[in-house]
C-alpha cells in the first residue's frame, strides 16, 4: 500500500513521559549494556515538560485532549561515554470526553447503499427489512435464501450471523471523507477492541488496541515510554579521524528535506499521534539501533568525509496508521483494514456489490457475505531474525567548493502494509464450496479475490541528497532523491492484486529568508518551498470494458509545499502558514498557526488545518467488483467478460480511492482547530 507523498508537517511539540520512570528505567538499561550510569562526578541533567494538545474537529467535536509528560535526561558516564534518554507518557482524554465519537459508545447502526433497489423484490433479509430499499441496514443484503431464490445453488454461503456481527458500534467505510456514490462500502466496527473485538488485528502496534492502550499509547509491550535511550561515544584516532558510536533506542535521520520522507525512512512513523501534523521527531518510532560513524574529516579534495553504518536490529515495526475509531487514521486505511478483517472473520454486508441483473453493469444490490469469503485474513509481521534486521550505509561529505552531499543505501522492510490476494482456504459464496466448480468455469483457478493477507516486503533503497546556496538569490537549495526496489502497490491487473515496482522519489526545496516589512523590518520571514515528485516505474494501467484496470497510484505525482514563517517580538511570537498541494489529488491543506512563548518555559500555540478537495471523481478506480474471481457468477457477460478471472474495471471510491486522495484528500472532512500549551518545569 502506498500513497503518493508519505509526508508529515511540522509543528513544534514535545510530549509525554513519566517522571517516575526516569531513574529506575535508566538504571535498569545500564545494567544490561551500558557503563555505570550512577558513577562519575557529572550529575544528571534532566528537563521535564508537560504539554496539553486539544483539538476540535469539524463535525466530530473534541478530537484530541492529549496530555503529555516528557523527561529528557542526560548524563556523562565517564570514559567519554554519554547517556541520553527521553521518556514520554501520554494520556488522551478524548476517548472519555467524546466517547460517542471515539470511545466505547462510538458508531452505531448503519445503512448501506443498494442501488439496485428498484429492480429488487421486497423479500425479507436477515435484518428483517425488505431487500428493495435504496439503503439497507447491515444484514439487509442478499443472503442464502435470497440467493437460492434467484437461482444460486442452495448451498450458497451468502449471509452471516447478525447476532455475532450485529449492526451496532459501526460506521460506513469511508464516511469520514466521502459518500458511497454507487461504489462499495461495508460496516466498520469503531469501538476500542476491548469493547468490540470485531476486525481487530495487530498490524504492528495498532489495529488491536484496547481503550487504555489508545488513551496511553506509550505504555505497551514495546515499552514505547522509553522513547529514546542510548549511549554514545567518540573514539579518536591518532590520525585525527574519529569513530562515533551510538547504541540504543534512537532516531536516525537521513536526508535534507522537510515533511517528505524520501531518505528519512529508517524509523517508522506514528501517524496515529497527530496524523501528519506533528514534528517528525515526535512521531518517529525510535528503534533499537547500533550506528557507527567513521569521521574522516578533511582530505586534499574534500572538506569533510564521513561513513555511517546503521544497523536497525530491532524487531520490525511498521508505520502506525491509526486504529479505526481513533481520531487520526491516515488515509482512513485503518478503517478499511478493520472492516475487511471483520468481513473475513464474521462476514458482513457490502453495499452495491451484486450486479442486477447478473452480468450487467448498471445497478448493484447490497450483498451479505459470509465469513472466510472476502476480507483480510492475516497480518504477516516479520518475526525477529537476523535476516529481518535492517542495514543502512551513508557517505556524507562536503566538497572543497562547499557542496554538501550524501549517498545513501538502505535495505529495510516496507513500513506500509502490502495486501496480497489469496484464494486457498476461501469459501466460494456462490456455491458454499471452494474454488470454481461451476461450468463453464469449473476448474478455473480462483484469482483476484478480495481476500488478503498483509505483508511487509523487503525494500532496497539507493539515494542521495545535496544542498548548496545561491548567494545572488539569497537562497539555499536542498535536493533529495531515492530509488527503491521492492515496494508493492495495489494492482488490479495482477492475479494477486498487487505488483512490485521500482519507485523514484525526489524533492527539491528552496529556503529563502525574506524581509517582509509588514511582518517585520528587522527579522526575516522564512519562505520555504518544496516540490515532491514520485515516479513509479513499469506503471501498469489499461482500459477495461467498465473502466481503468491496474495500478491506482499515479505513475507520476507531484506535491508542493509552501511554508511562510515569521518571527516577532524577539522570536517570542511566531506566526506561520503551511500549505500543501497534492496536484493529482487536487487536494490542498492550509495550516495557519501562531506560537507564543509567554515565558522561556511556557508556550501557547494556536492553530488550525483546513483541507480542500476539488471533487472526488478522480479518486474512483477499479474496486474489483468486476474482478470475476468466481465465473460464471461474477462474470460481466454483458460487458464481454469471459469466464476467467480478470477485472473489467468497474470503479468506485472505495477501496482504492484513498491512495489517490492521499493524506490530504482522505482527510478533507477533518478540519481541525487546536490549542497546545507546553510548560517546562
Amino acid at each position, binding site marked *: 500500500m502506498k500513497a503518493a507523498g508519505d509526508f508529515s508537517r*511540522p509543528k*513544534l511539540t*514535545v510530549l509525554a513521559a513519566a517522571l517516575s520512570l526516569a531513574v529506575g528505567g535508566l538504571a535498569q538499561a545500564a545494567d544490561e549494556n551500558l557503563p555505570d550510569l550512577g558513577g562519575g562526578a557529572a550529575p544528571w541533567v534532566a*528537563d521535564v*515538560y508537560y504539554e496539553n494538545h486539544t483539538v476540535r474537529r469539524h463535525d466530530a467535536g473534541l478530537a484530541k485532549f492529549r496530555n503529555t509528560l516528557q523527561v529528557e535526561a542526560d548524563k556523562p558516564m565517564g570514559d567519554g561515554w554519554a547517556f541520553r534518554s527521553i521518556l514520554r507518557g501520554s494520556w488522551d482524554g478524548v476517548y472519555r470526553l467524546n466517547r460517542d465519537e471515539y470511545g466505547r459508545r462510538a458508531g452505531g447502526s448503519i445503512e448501506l447503499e443498494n442501488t439496485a433497489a428498484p429492480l429488487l423484490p421486497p423479500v425479507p433479509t436477515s435484518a428483517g427489512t425488505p431487500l428493495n430499499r435504496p439503503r439497507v441496514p447491515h444484514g439487509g443484503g442478499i443472503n442464502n435464501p435470497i440467493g437460492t431464490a434467484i437461482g444460486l445453488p442452495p448451498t450458497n454461503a451468502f449471509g452471516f450471523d447478525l447476532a455475532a456481527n450485529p449492526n451496532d458500534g459501526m460506521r460506513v467505510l469511508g464516511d469520514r471523507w466521502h459518500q458511497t456514490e454507487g461504489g462499495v462500502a461495508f460496516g466498520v466496527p469503531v469501538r476500542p477492541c476491548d469493547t468490540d473485538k470485531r476486525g481487530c488485528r495487530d498490524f504492528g502496534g495498532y489495529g488491536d488496541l484496547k481503550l487504555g492502550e489508545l488513551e496511553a499509547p506509550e505504555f505497551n509491550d514495546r515499552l514505547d515510554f522509553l522513547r529514546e535511550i542510548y549511549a*554514545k561515544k567518540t573514539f579518536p584516532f591518532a590520525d*585525527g579521524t*574519529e569513530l*562515533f558510536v*551510538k547504541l540504543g533506542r*534512537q*532516531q536516525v*535521520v537521513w*536526508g*535534507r528535506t*522537510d515533511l517528505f520522507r524520501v531518505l528519512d525512512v529508517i524509523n517508522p512513523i506514528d501517524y496515529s499521534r497527530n496524523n501528519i501534523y506533528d*514534528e*517528525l*521527531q515526535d512521531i518517529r518510532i525510535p528503534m533499537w539501533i547500533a*550506528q557507527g*560513524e567513521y*569521521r574522516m*574529516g*578533511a582530505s*586534499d*579534495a574534500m*572538506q*569533510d568525509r*564521513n561513513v555511517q553504518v546503521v544497523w536497525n536490529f530491532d524487531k520490525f515495526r511498521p508505520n502506525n496508521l491509526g486504529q479505526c475509531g481513533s481520531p487520526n487514521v491516515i488515509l482512513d486505511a485503518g478503517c478499511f483494514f478493520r472492516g475487511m478483517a471483520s468481513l473475513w472473520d464474521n462476514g458482513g454486508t457490502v453495499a452495491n456489490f451484486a450486479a442486477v441483473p447478473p452480468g450487467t453493469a448498471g445497478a448493484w444490490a447490497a450483498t451479505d457475505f459470509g465469513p472466510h469469503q472476502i476480507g483480510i485474513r492475516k497480518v504477516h509481521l516479520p518475526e525477529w531474525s537476523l535476516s529481518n534486521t535492517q542495514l543502512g550505509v551513508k557517505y*556524507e561529505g562536503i566538497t*572543497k567548493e*562547499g557542496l*554538501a552531499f550524501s549517498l545513501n543505501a538502505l535495505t529495510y522492510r516496507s513500513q506500509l502494509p502490502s495486501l496480497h490476494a489469496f484464494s486457498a482456504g476461501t469459501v466460494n459464496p456462490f456455491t458454499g464450496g471452494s474454488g470454481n466448480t461451476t461450468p463453464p468455469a469449473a476448474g478455473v483457478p480462483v484469482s483476484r479475490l478480495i481476500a488478503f493477507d498483509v505483508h511487509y516486503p523487503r525494500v532496497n533503497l539507493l539515494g542521495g541528497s545535496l*544542498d*548548496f*546556496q545561491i*548567494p545572488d538569490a*539569497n537562497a*539555499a*537549495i*536542498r535536493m533529495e532523491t531515492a530509488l527503491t526496489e521492492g515496494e508493492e502497490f495495489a494492482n488490479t491487473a495482477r492475479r494477486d492484486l498487487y505488483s512490485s515496482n521500482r519507485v523514484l522519489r525526489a524533492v527539491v526545496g528552496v*529556503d*529563502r*529568508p525574506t*524581509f517582509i516589512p509588514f511582518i517585520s523590518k*528587522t*527579522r*526575516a520571514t522564512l519562505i520555504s518551498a518544496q516540490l515532491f515528485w514520485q515516479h513509479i516505474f513499469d506503471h501498469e494501467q489499461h482500459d477495461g470494458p467498465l473502466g481503468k484496470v491496474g495500478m491506482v497510484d499515479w505513475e507520476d505525482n507531484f506535491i508542493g509545499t509552501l511554508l511562510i514563517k515569521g*518571527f516577532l*517580538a*524577539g*522570536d*517570542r511570537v511566531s506566526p506561520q502558514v503551511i500549505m500543501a498541494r497534492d496536484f493529482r489529488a487536487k487536494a490542498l491543506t492550509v495550516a495557519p498557526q501562531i*506560537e507564543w*512563548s509567554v515565558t*522561556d*518555559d511556557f*508556550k501557547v500555540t494556536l492553530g488550525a488545518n483546513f483541507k480542500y478537495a476539488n471533487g472526488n471523481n478522480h479518486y474512483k478506480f477499479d474496486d474489483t467488483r468486476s474482478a470475476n474471481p468466481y465465473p460464471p457468477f461474477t462474470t460481466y457477460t454483458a460487458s464481454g467478460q469471459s469466464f476467467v478471472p480478470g477485472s473489467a474495471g468497474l470503479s468506485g471510491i472505495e477501496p482504492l480511492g484513498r491512495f489517490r486522495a492521499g493524506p490530504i484528500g482522505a482527510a478533507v472532512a477533518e478540519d481541525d482547530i487546536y490549542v497546545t500549551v*507546553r510548560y*517546562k518545569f
Partner: protein
Amino acid sequence: MTRYFARRSSIAVALACAAGTLHAASEADIDKSFFPYKSAVPTAAGVTAGTVINKGNFANFEAVLDPGLQRHIQAGAVEITVGKTTSFDIDKSYVDATRENAGKVKLGAKPGELVGYVAGRPFPEEPDAKDPRAGEKLAWNFRYGMNWGDGLAISPFYWKYRNMDSGKVERNILFNFHFIKYTHRLNQVPTPEISPNPSKLYRATYVNVQEPQDVKNTQLLIQRYEDDLKQDDAYLYLGFQRRVRRLSTGQTTDAFLGSDIMIEDFEGYNGRISDMNWKYKGTVNMLMPFYHHNDMKLSDEYKESDGYKYVAFGGQGGCFPDITWQLRKVHIVESSPVDPNHPVSRRVHYMDAQTSAMSQTLVYDRKGDLWKIFMLGMTHPDSHLAQNKGSGIVLFDAFSMIDVQAKHCTTGQFKGRADAKMVPVNLFSVQNMRGGS
C-alpha cells in the same frame, strides 16, 4: 581633453600605487601599534580614574564619548565611571609575526583582496587620512586580529532580551560559542595552519543553544573562507527537526534568534571585508569599555562551580554593562554596505588601536538614522579566569546591543576560555552538528 585623460590616468595610477605599494612598517610603527601606552597614557581634561560621568556633567566629556554613549548619558539612561588606562598587551607570538612579516602585505586591486599576508597585524603602521584605503587596511587588521586567538570558547554565554523602558527581561538564552582559526595560527598547535584544509577556510564559529526549550539544541556553524570574496557557508541544526539546514548568507543580516543583534554584528563586524566600503575617519582618544574583569562589580545571578562571576548590568532597562571605561587611542572607521538593499546604511566602528577590537559600534538604518549601539566590553586576560592569565588574548567579556529606536536591548555575559581542548577542529564540522542523529 588630453590633459583631462592624463590627469585621470595619473590619479588612477596613484590610487593603484597606494593600494599595491608595500609599505614596510618600521620597528617604531610596530611598537607604537602594539604598545601605545608604553611612554604615556592618553589624557583629557577631567578624565581621571574614578570620575563618574552622568547626565549632570556629560557636557564636560563630550570629546571623549562616542555619540551613542553620550546620548544615553545625556538622557540619564546610564552613568559611567572612568577607569585607569592600562595596556592590553597582545600575545608575543602575534607581535613577533607582525615584525617578521612587516612590509610583505599589500592590498589587492579590489576590496577584499590581500596579497602576501602570513600572520600578525597586516598593517601596523598608523592609518593615513590621505590614504583612500586606510579604512580597508584597518578592517584587515580587525579581521586578522588576535581577538579570541587561534581558538577559544565562550561557555557558558548568557543572553537577555530586555525592554529598555520597563526593564523586563523578555527572554533568556544560554549559548556556547566556539571559535577556531584554520590559518595564520600562532599560539595553539598546530601552527601555522590546520591541514588538510582544501576549502581554504580561515575561521569557523560554532554555536550551540542550551536554553530555552523552544530553541534548545539549535546549532549554528559559520565557515569563513580565506578568500574574502567567497561567501561564508552557514549551517543550522534545529533540535526539533534533527536536521542540518544550509543557510543562505542573507540570514547574517537577520535578527539572530530574534535578538537585537544580527550575525553580521558579532564582534563589531562579522562579515566579509568586500561587502563593505571602508573609510578611515580619524584617530581620537575616547572612553572605551576596556577593564579588568576581576576588579568590576560582578553579578551573583549565575553560579559557576569554579566561582567565576559574570559582569553585572545596570542603567536603564539593565542595558549597560556595569564596568569602568578607559580612555584609549581609537581609530574611527566607517563601513557602508556595497549592497543597496542591506538593512544597514552604515556602521561607525570605534576600533581600539592597541588591540584592533571594535568595541564600540554605531549602526545606522537605511534612512540614515541611528538604529543600534553596540558595546563590547573587553577584559584584560590576566584579570579573569586563571586559564586565561598570560594568554595575551584580549577577552570579550560583556556586550549590549541597544536598539535605540525600539527601546530594546540584548545583553550578553561571557565566560571566555582560552582553552584549545574546547575547540577541537572536529567540533566545527557539519557532521558534529548531526551528532549521530
